[in-house]
């Protein structure tokens, strides 16, 4: 009898350990996290506009008034530059790393002239950019990227049906490209 109680106790200790291991390891192997879904779109280096209905990757415009575009990017070969302009009532951008941790976020009020112009770069690339700033990056916001890979989420607001086209054009014309001098 005592040995059965002992076995259950050992089992409970093991269960606690397993609980901790699963919770800590889960983000690495779900395959359903936001970055895997963005990669599943097979669209690197350009903004992919999502639909109201979840596509094969399960990403969709959750909010009925926000149009969302995502872009998977890598700063391995060089800095990544994000540019968008247009007259939507509100837009916002968030940059996440491969573990879906937020690196940087901004909206149209925190942008220069209300236009999106952002460069994500590794610390070494940033030093290069600051040493000899290219002419066309004079207005850009430069942000350091701790990892090499990540994804960007760009949201545009369409508070009424008449803004629908503006918001879609804003996302369609937004670019997310490797920056070359």
């Amino acid at each position, binding site marked *: 009898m005592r040995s059965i109680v002992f076995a259950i106790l050992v089992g409970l200790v093991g269960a606690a350990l397993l609980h901790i291991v*699963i919770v800590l390891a889960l983000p690495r192997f779900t395959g359903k996290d936001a970055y895997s879904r963005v990669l599943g779109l097979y669209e690197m280096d350009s903004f992919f506009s999502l639909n109201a209905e979840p596509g094969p990757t399960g990403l969709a415009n959750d909010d009925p008034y926000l149009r969302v575009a995502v872009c998977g990017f890598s700063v391995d070969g060089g800095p990544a530059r994000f540019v968008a302009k247009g007259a939507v009532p509100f837009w916002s951008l968030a940059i996440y790393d491969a573990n879906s941790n937020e690196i940087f976020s901004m909206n149209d009020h925190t942008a220069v002239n209300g236009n999106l112009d952002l460069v994500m770069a590794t610390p070494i690339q940033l030093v290069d950019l600051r040493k000899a700033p290219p002419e066309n990056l004079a207005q850009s916001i430069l942000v350091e990227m701790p990892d090499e890979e990540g994804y960007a989420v760009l949201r545009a607001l369409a508070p009424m049906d008449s803004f629908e086209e503006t918001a879609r054009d804003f996302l369609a014309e937004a670019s997310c490209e490797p920056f070359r001098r």
Partner: protein
Amino acid sequence: MFRIPFLVALALIVTFGVGIISTVSALKATVGFGAIALGPWVALPDAQTENTDPYAKAHRARAGKLLYGGAEGLEFTAAMDSTGEKLSSGCSYDIIGTTPPARFWTLYTANASDQPAKTDPALPSAINAWTVLRKPDSTFVIHVSPAAQPGNWLAIRRIGPFKLVLTLLDTPTAGSSGLIDLAMPAIVKTGCPDA
């Protein structure tokens, strides 16, 4: 004769059974710690950051949602009314009051598994800061009901329990440490025609 193998098997069954069930139920029951609750409205301002707890990280990796960054907005969900009762789509509710300062807000309904609820596209299934009708003091009353209502009507389908999702865009609420003066609208049940 089979005492030792039996005891080992028992310990392993307890380990894997309790370990897996407790993990799955913990991830289902909570979306992590660090939530701020304003009446029935609950938000996780740090859920998308590195600093959030392991439960929130596991939960967001399983849900795979595109979360809002700090400068983008803050999403509040309510699964209960102001008296603490679960929201049921058989009932009608009034959302009364005003939101904390934000440039814009949107309100829509979601089903129990956090997916946006599907309604007839002809019905008003979402409301935002521009389309809502306000009183002279800029507060509003939104009627959430499966039956048509005068004024601000948020249509729901009879799908059982549901959630209300209120997203504040570009709001100082996310970075606010003193959550004293933030008033969220109250959710008041007005009646259950079926019950």
